[in-house]
């Protein structure tokens, strides 16, 4: 690996150089549908890289991975990777990943680093790993830079309290939650129980805490009534009971993490049903 790049100009120069196809000497085509930012504190790096590699194929984008390191000395350390893959019979397309370590005080001003690297006119998605520091500088700044925030509230401790903070930003940015996406098969299943489900008083969820709160919030907000939640911990959603009656298992296979993120990257508008569910988690 070459020495780290320390400025935007160096990053741009390196991207340009790597985009040239060594065989033909011509620049490879860049096909992008978005800029994808990922805020990945050190402990999430491994998990994040796994998902990213599954994603690259489906959503060609410029991906900017931001790794904060507040305790290090003030600096920007970047590396750039241009991957190319063949498309059709004659051409190659390139995709770019920029890995940026924000050291020291730079952690506080991520927007100014990211802005010059965004692809013009294309939507910007921000995947925030772990619980966002609501109200704090790096998060607040980036929220105002992007079109859509993607979180996975399964990663959050202390639920449902943080949902309250999340609801506060709904008017500023469209939000997707992978925990919510993971409940979609079950929501379809529960919806198919209409109208019998209309009078339900109590839901028991065997799954993650996030899934339990979101499903309960969803039922409360859709049905417009109080519904009690009982939660039994499991690392995936494996069962739902309504008033003590187990619901039949939904058909199909659970989607994999890259699929879930990929689906969220296809949405561009606010998800009102999700927002309502989040707001009703603490009822």
């Amino acid at each position, binding site marked *: 690996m070459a020495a780290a790049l320390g400025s935007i100009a160096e990053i741009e120069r390196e991207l340009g150089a790597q985009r040239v196809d060594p065989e033909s000497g011509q620049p490879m085509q860049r096909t992008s549908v978005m800029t994808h930012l990922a805020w990945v504190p050190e402990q999430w790096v491994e998990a994040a890289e796994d998902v990213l590699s599954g994603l690259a194929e489906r959503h*060609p984008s410029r991906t900017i991975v931001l790794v904060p390191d507040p305790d290090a000395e003030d600096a920007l350390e970047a590396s750039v990777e241009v991957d190319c893959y063949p*498309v059709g019979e004659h051409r190659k*397309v390139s995709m770019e990943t920029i890995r940026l370590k924000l050291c020291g005080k730079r952690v506080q001003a991520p927007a100014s680093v990211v802005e010059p690297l965004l692809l013009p006119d294309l939507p910007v998605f921000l995947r925030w790993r772990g619980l966002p520091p609501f109200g704090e500088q790096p998060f607040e700044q980036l929220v105002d830079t992007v079109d859509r925030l993607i979180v996975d509230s399964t990663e959050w401790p202390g639920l449902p309290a943080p949902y309250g903070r999340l609801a506060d930003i709904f008017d500023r940015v469209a939000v997707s939650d992978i925990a919510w996406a993971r409940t979609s098969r079950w929501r379809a299943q529960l*919806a198919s129980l209409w109208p019998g489900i209309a009078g339900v008083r109590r839901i028991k969820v065997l799954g993650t805490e996030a899934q339990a709160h979101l499903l309960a919030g969803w*039922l409360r907000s*859709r049905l417009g009534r109080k519904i009690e939640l009982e939660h039994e911990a499991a690392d995936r959603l494996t069962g739902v009971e309504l008033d003590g009656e187990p619901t039949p298992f939904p058909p199909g296979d659970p989607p994999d993490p890259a699929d879930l993120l990929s689906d969220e990257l296809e949405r561009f508008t606010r998800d009102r049903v999700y927002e309502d569910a989040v707001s009703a988690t603490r009822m």
Partner: protein
Amino acid sequence: MAVAEQQENPLLEGLRLRRTPDPCALVIFGASGDLTKRKLFPALYSLALRHLLPERFGIIGVARTEESDDDFREAMKAAVQEFGRDAFQQETWDWLAERTRYVATDFADEGGQQRLVGALNELDEKQGTSGNRVYYLAVPPSAIATLIHEIGEHRSTDGWTRLIVEKPFGRDLASAQELNAELQQSFEEREVFRIDHYLGKETVQNLLALRFANGIFEPIWNRQFVDHVQITVAESIGIEGRAAFYEQAGAIRDIFQNHLLQLVALTAMEPPIDFTAESVRNEKVKVLRAMHTPGPKHVVRGQYGQGFIEGEEVPGYRDEPGVARDSMTETFVAAKLFVDNWRWADTPFYVRAGKRLARRETTIAIEFKRAPHPPFEESAEGELQPNVLVVHIQPDEGVSLEFAAKVPGQGLTLRTVHMDFLYGGAFRTGIPEAYERLILDCLLGDTTLFTRSDEVEEQWSLVDAIVAFWKRDRPAFPNYEAGTWGPAAADELMRRDGRSWRRH
């Protein structure tokens, strides 16, 4: 509860539910044939893998050849493994195999349908397919009329019945009208699905998205700005052992009548008011009606002789097994067509289709008029090319725009550069095969991407008029070498107008 029942289900809001087809049985006639093996089963498998088929579903393969259920399943499994686009998963296959049966029968025989009727009733009982039927006619044209008649006579009284008819639909206007009349005896138009698999291709549908979902193209998509349109459907393969079929068809019936005219219609049509089957097809039919018959000078036919493809020597058409030594069947056709309406009057559509051409390629190129007064006369006159918008349908699906740019440095040298949008590059969800889309649409009852009866008749009347001229003379075939872009006369067709075919 009574109140809730009348209310709309609030839980459905925001759920992205896919429509799933009704329970049904799919009967494939011609199950021992090439299409079933190469396209239909691989497509069904891909649909099953994505859970797009109904849970209560059954497939009955029908042909005259005696074969057991197990042998048929084995053959289809091998076909899915060989031709499928997805990795093979035993579990998905088991799901499909469990629902697959084979019936050997001949509908031309008295009582030939009884074996099938029995199998269908059994399927209704076992799989709960509720009398809903799709009949896929993947048989040679000669067998189609009998099948339509017999199916019509014995159509199920419960549930719905749909019929998928493969191309070629007839071989001239008269035979197409006869087939349509036969169909209309027992079926409504909305029950008939005439396949033109080009319409199932993503990029062909993308042409509609490009035209009607973008504000910048439609205002210039007309005679004022477009100099001409070029449509190429080029194949590098020969007839692949299908001499019996091809000798009767030729390029005009194999490609021109259906795929090529569909591309012309989609390129030239007016914006439909919505994307329902009737609106889209109404607009396409209007284009076909507005096309006038090209005179003999505006049509070129060709037949390939011996030549080279990818460096390998290949025989001429007349030396292909099964082809007459003095065959007059055309393997190439080019034409200059006009769509006589306000949008396109006097704007030629040059089209060509052929086998054993230099490469496999299907493109629609919209060539715009030149800049009226380029202020670059001295340095760049010869170099200045018109803008071309190219829709690539295969192999590299996408859209590209050619425009002039200045070469960096002193002076003003201009070069044509490409701006490309690669469909496969931007959305790598894995492009579904045309047959997947078409089978699914039929199961859902959506006829938008199928050819309507009046549409197919308009296509044939144009073809008939062209073929009528051909009866008068015998061109000196072969007149182009395999691996080239067709006969010299095709180039002449454009050169006369001061234009030329695009090269890549």
